[in-house]
Structures are given as C-alpha cells and as structure tokens.
C-alpha cells in the first residue's frame, strides 16, 4: 500500500529534520520526506491529492500532529515461548505498536531460554507471522542463562540474534564476562549487561534505605549495581568488546558511565527506563507490588541524576524493560511478587514529559528512542530502522501531543496490566502508528 502523510510536524534526528513535511511511503518503504512548510507547498500537496498524483494512496492528514520515526525499544520481554499467560509475541507487539514502538528487541529469559538457534528461529518466525512490528531477538550470553559457559553466539547470530544478554541474571563470573566481551568481537556483537552484584543484593526486593526499613523489606544498595557497572566497563576496556549497560537506575552508575565515556577508552553505551526518571522507592509504600522491579526504584536524588544523565547524553537510550506479569502473580506478598513493569504503552507519554519539564529537547528525546538505539543495534547502517531516510522501513508514529489522557492499564493491549503509572495524566499518545507499511489507527 502507498501512503501519504501530509502536513505533519516531522522530527527525524537521523537527518536533522524538524519542520512541516509530507512523507510518502511506497511498497513498505519510506520514499520521500519533503518540506511542505509554506502555504504554496501545502496548496500544491492538496492539489496533488485531489488530482491523480497520489492516486491509490492512503492519505493521512497529520496537520497539527507530530510525526517521528517508529520508536526502537531495545529492552522488551515478550515472554514467548513458555510464559504465554504473561504475554505473547502477538500481544506484546500489538502493545508496542499502540505505544508507537515499531521495533523491539526481546530478551532471552523465555522458557526454554533463547540460548540456541532453534528458539531464535521460532521467535523470528512467530513474529513474522503474528507480530505487529519488527522483532529482533537478543540471545543469551550463557547456556541456560546459568552463567557457566558461553552460548553459541555465532550460530545464534546467523539465526537472527541482534545482541547478547543474560538479562535478569548478571554474569557473576568476571572471567566468563571477559570471555563474552572478547569472543563477541568476531561478530562485533553487542553485549547488554544487567548490572547487579547478586551477593551484595542478597535477595533484596527494593532499594535499601529508610523506606525498606520501615516496610521491613530487604534492601538492595545502589552499590550492587554500581560495582558491576564498574566491572563491566573495566572488562570492556580490557577486551575492546561492545558493552551496553541496561536499565541504569542509580546516580553512582551515571557518574561511572559519564567518567568512562569521558576517558573514551571503551565502546560503551547505556540505557534507562521511564520508571527510573519518574518515580522513587516511595511508590512501594503499602507493599505495592507494581513498584517491584529490578533494578529497584531508587531515591529522588537518583531520579534527578538519571535525568541529568539523559540530558548530557551519558545515557544514550530510553528503553522500557517491558516486563508483563499475570495479575495473580502480582497479587501476593511483596517478597513473592515477580519483578517488572508493563511499559510499552506508557513509554512515549512518560518520556515526552521530560520535554515538557525541560529536561530534554524534543529532538534529543526522539534521538534516544529512535536513532540511538538503531545505531547501537546496527540497524541504522543498513538505513532500515530509527530513521525516515528514503529506503528505510515504513515505520513511523503520528503523535497527538495536545490532548491529555489518563493511563488505564485495564485498557492495555499488553496482557501485563502491571503498571505503577495507573491514573497518571499524560500527553503525547500515538494516534496512528505505521509499522512496516501497515497502518494502525486509534483516533
């Protein structure tokens, strides 16, 4: 199908585009983004639409709306295979598209673990058949995510794994992590690290501090994250491997990453998630299991530091760490609730608040949700994702930035209704998402 999106305010950091444009899509690819700013240009487009120039085109009038490249979320749990009661590739990608996300990287902690080409192929085939958006599997670093021996990086890479991570379970053995960063160089593959010193975390369930003490819950000090951030940066320096630090949650981690980037000795990038720049450990009061997430929600000072890290580009990417769970699993004692927040459908609205609050410019924000993750994942070099350049996949999102709406997890496309943002008032909601040339419309 051919599509014309006209009179949109387009922001595309990959080309420095920021203005009123018309976008044409042909055969599932971006054909052209053309300035339509002036009254003359607009008149011409309107005339063309009426005449034959756009015959057969689906025309979307995006006047007054924001259009950005489809968002790239490099940290998502789709749960299939094995935990289909929490989420499936179908429901997870539908949730993504509802949130304006057209590319997701799915973490390997499925059942069985995505530590071999068979599982990778299953995910890719299922996504091709049922997925609403592009899905790139992340393979496990170690077999069974057990932290004992390396998984078959090269064979999994051939099958379609875009990066490697033992997400949810850190590789505690420093020698093994060294080998992972070293061996992955044959593929120039990205190693995504979940930084948590398990012995220091000692089975904690929330941030360590006065709030954990008053709730009687076991705390995890921020140093459990920071020690591993330091270790992995040191190992990246040692090996020259490509390290991406997942879900940064503490002020100390931001500081360590900032200093390492300044030294410029290692190939490191880092992400954070909306819950780490909006809410604190206080949300766990009353044993609110929707606030249980790993790494845990921290303090106001950490939230401020994360925002500063985004602002000065220490943190390159905003991802969701979308971790859907069944309601029954969260309706239990805090100690027994699984960690995770269902985040795909609130990510854009929560992130756009950073623009409203003056933390990021709009183009800087969009960069962290499109261009940067696409570049880190190697999806930009082919010119396919995170950009509206001619020839790129037809992924874009038309955003209504004016009307406020209330977050209602009950209405999520995701099976996971576990959101601590229930009832928040947000602006910036996708009105239309175009994913690989397919149009999804909600308003």
């Amino acid at each position, binding site marked *: 199908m051919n599509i014309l999106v006209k009179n949109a305010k387009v922001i595309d950091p990959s080309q420095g585009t920021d203005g009123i444009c018309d976008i044409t899509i042909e055969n599932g690819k971006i054909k052209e983004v053309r300035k339509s700013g002036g009254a003359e240009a607009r008149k011409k487009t309107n005339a063309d639409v009426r005449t034959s120039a756009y015959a057969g085109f689906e025309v979307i009038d995006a006047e007054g709306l924001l259009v950005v490249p489809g968002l790239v979320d490099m940290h998502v749990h789709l749960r299939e295979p094995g935990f289909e009661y929490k989420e499936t590739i179908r429901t997870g990608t539908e949730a993504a598209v509802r949130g304006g996300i057209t590319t997701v990287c799915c973490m390997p902690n499925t059942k069985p673990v995505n530590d071999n080409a068979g599982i990778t192929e299953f995910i890719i085939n299922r996504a091709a058949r049922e997925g609403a958006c592009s899905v790139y599997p992340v393979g496990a670093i170690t077999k069974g995510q057990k932290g004992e021996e390396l998984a078959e990086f090269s064979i999994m890479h051939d099958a379609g794994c875009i990066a490697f991570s033992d997400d949810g379970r850190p590789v505690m053995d420093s020698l093994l992590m060294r080998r992972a960063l070293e061996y992955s160089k044959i593929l120039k593959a990205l190693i995504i690290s979940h930084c948590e010193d398990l012995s220091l975390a000692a089975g904690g369930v929330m941030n360590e501090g*006065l709030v954990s003490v008053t*709730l009687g819950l076991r705390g995890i000090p921020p140093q459990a994250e920071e020690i591993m951030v330091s270790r992995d940066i040191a190992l990246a320096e040692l090996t020259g491997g490509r390290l991406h630090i997942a879900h940064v949650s503490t002020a100390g981690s931001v500081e360590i990453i900032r200093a390492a980037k300044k030294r410029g000795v290692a190939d490191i990038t880092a992400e954070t998630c909306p819950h780490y720049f909006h809410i604190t450990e206080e949300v766990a009061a009353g*044993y609110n299991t929707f606030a249980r997430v790993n790494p845990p929600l921290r303090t106001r000072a950490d939230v401020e530091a994360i925002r500063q890290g985004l602002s000065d580009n220490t943190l390159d990417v905003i991802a969701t760490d979308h971790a859907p769970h069944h309601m029954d699993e969260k*309706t*239990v*004692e*805090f100690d027994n609730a699984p960690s995770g927040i269902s985040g795909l459908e609130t990510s854009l609205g929560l992130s756009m608040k950073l623009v409203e609050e003056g933390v990021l410019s709009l183009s800087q924000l969009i960069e962290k949700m499109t261009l940067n993750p696409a570049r880190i994942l190697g999806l930009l070099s082919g010119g396919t994702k995170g950009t509206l350049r001619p020839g790129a996949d037809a992924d874009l999102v038309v955003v209504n930035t004016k009307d406020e709406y209330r977050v209602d997890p009950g209405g999520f496309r995701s099976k996971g209704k576990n959101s601590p943002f229930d009832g928040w008032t947000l602006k910036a909601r996708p009105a239309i998402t175009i994913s690989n040339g397919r149009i999804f419309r909600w308003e």
Partner: protein
Amino acid sequence: MSLRSKDLTGLKDLSTDDINLIIETAAGFKDVLGRDIKKVPALRGRTTVNLFYEPSTRTRTSFELAAKRLSTDVINVSVSTSSVVKGETLKDTARTIEALGADFIVVRHACSGAAHFLADNLGSSVINAGDGTNEHPTQALLDIFTIKEKKGSVAGLKVAIVGDILHSRVAKSNIYGLTKLGAEIKLIGPPTLVPLCFGDLGPSVYYDMDEGLKDADIVMTLRIQSERQGKGFFPSTDEYFKNWGLTSKRLLKAKEDVMVMHPGPMNRGVEISSDVADGERSVILEQVTNGLAVRMAVLYLLSGAKQ
C-alpha cells in the same frame, strides 16, 4: 469503644489515642484474669482463626487463650497441616477461611506486609502476629503495657533495645509505639545488625553497649537467631555475648531501678546471662501474662462490641 481500623497491622499507622485505648482496656482485662472465673462472654458466637505460617508457641498460645477468655470459638491453622503445601496463595487460603465465617484472622507470616495484604483483601479483622521483619504489634503493646504498669508513664523514659534490630519486628513495633508515647530510644548492637538509617526513625544508635546502656530506665534484649551466625553478621555467639550480652555487671551502667525485658524465647548465654534473666530486675514472665490481657483488649476493641 473501638479502634479506628478494622485491623491491627502495626503500630506505625496506629494513633497514640488508639494505643492508649488498648492499654487502658487491657488493664480491665488483667483484672478479669485475676479472678477465679477468668472467662467473659463478650465475644460469644464469634470465630477467631489463628493462621500461622511460621512456628510459634507463645504468641499462638497467647492469642488462643485470649480468644477463649472472650468466649470466641478458636481454630488453629498451621502451615504443615493446611493446604498451603499444595501451593495455594495466601489470598486464596485467607478467603477460604473468611468464607467459613472467621471474624478475626490472626496471621503470622515470614513475608513483611503479609498482614497488610490480607487486611486489604478481606472483610474480616486481621491481626498481625508478626510479619517478616516488619512488625509484631501485640508484642510491643504488651511491652508498653508492662512499662506503664511498672513505671507509671512512658514519656521521658530511656529505653535501650539491644541486639538484632535489623531483623526484629519486635524492635520495629516498639520503636514506633514507644516513640509515639514520648520515650527516648537507644538502639544497641553490632553495626551489621543495626544499620544507621534506623536513626532516621528517631532513636540514637550505639555500637558500644556500655555507652548505650548509660542511664537506661528499660533494657530490652532481643533474641539472636542462630541462623544469623555464619551469615557474617557476627563471628560467633561467644563474641556476640562478649560485646552485647546483657550481664549483671553491664546492667550497672543503667539506672538503679532499671527494668529488663525480653520478648522470648531467650538464648541464655548469648544475648542475656541467666542471673539477669532470672534476676529481680527482670519482668520477662510478667510480659507473658500481660500479653494475654493486651490480646484480649485488641480482639475486643476490633470487634467494636459494647461492654
């Protein structure tokens, strides 16, 4: 007369008025317990379920007896004999018990917040008999009752709490309750078991026992659980006793009329020496007796019944 909430989950959220009401009501029930016929018909026809997910002798027995003294029917459900082993969730188990017509559910659970969780999910009155490392409100209430009985008032007293503060739900409830009533609290123990952030709750923190005991009106020693040793909290029970064991010599640092308390069960020679435990300053057995009166008061006040 009744409490503001249908549940007693902790002293953190209980008002000073409610604490005082429980203490005053308990005094009346203590009189009843001194009579020949120790039973009153106040809660006849009501049902109390003791839902214990952790082993307990004194607390469960105390609740059972308190409920019986008030003429409620009592059922004890303990983890080993219930369907819990079949993997039923806490919510489902509790709702099943509620459907059987329980008016009061007394719960002890290894997870902090378990009592809050049940209180939020059930219409029955939920009484926290100890949840993880969070709170053990009736223990603190009986401690407060005992202090008031012996010292007349709590306000202005120096209360030293010694031992494993980090893992102690008894210490937490006492910190909240005694602070509300105006006591000055000193926490004493090894740094691994007394994190400094406890100071943010109001008390002062001491690692040196002699310093912490200075001028204390009350010394509460806490049970040192044997499983803490070997996890690096302290090297040995001998070393613990050397530094933080309550001996008669150490007790001289406190006020002359100091009162020694222990929530039980005691490890003699670990956190307290036998001569102190059995000595004239000890009120440990009176605490147990008072526990019965306090638990009767809690059940009675939660029922909202008229005397």
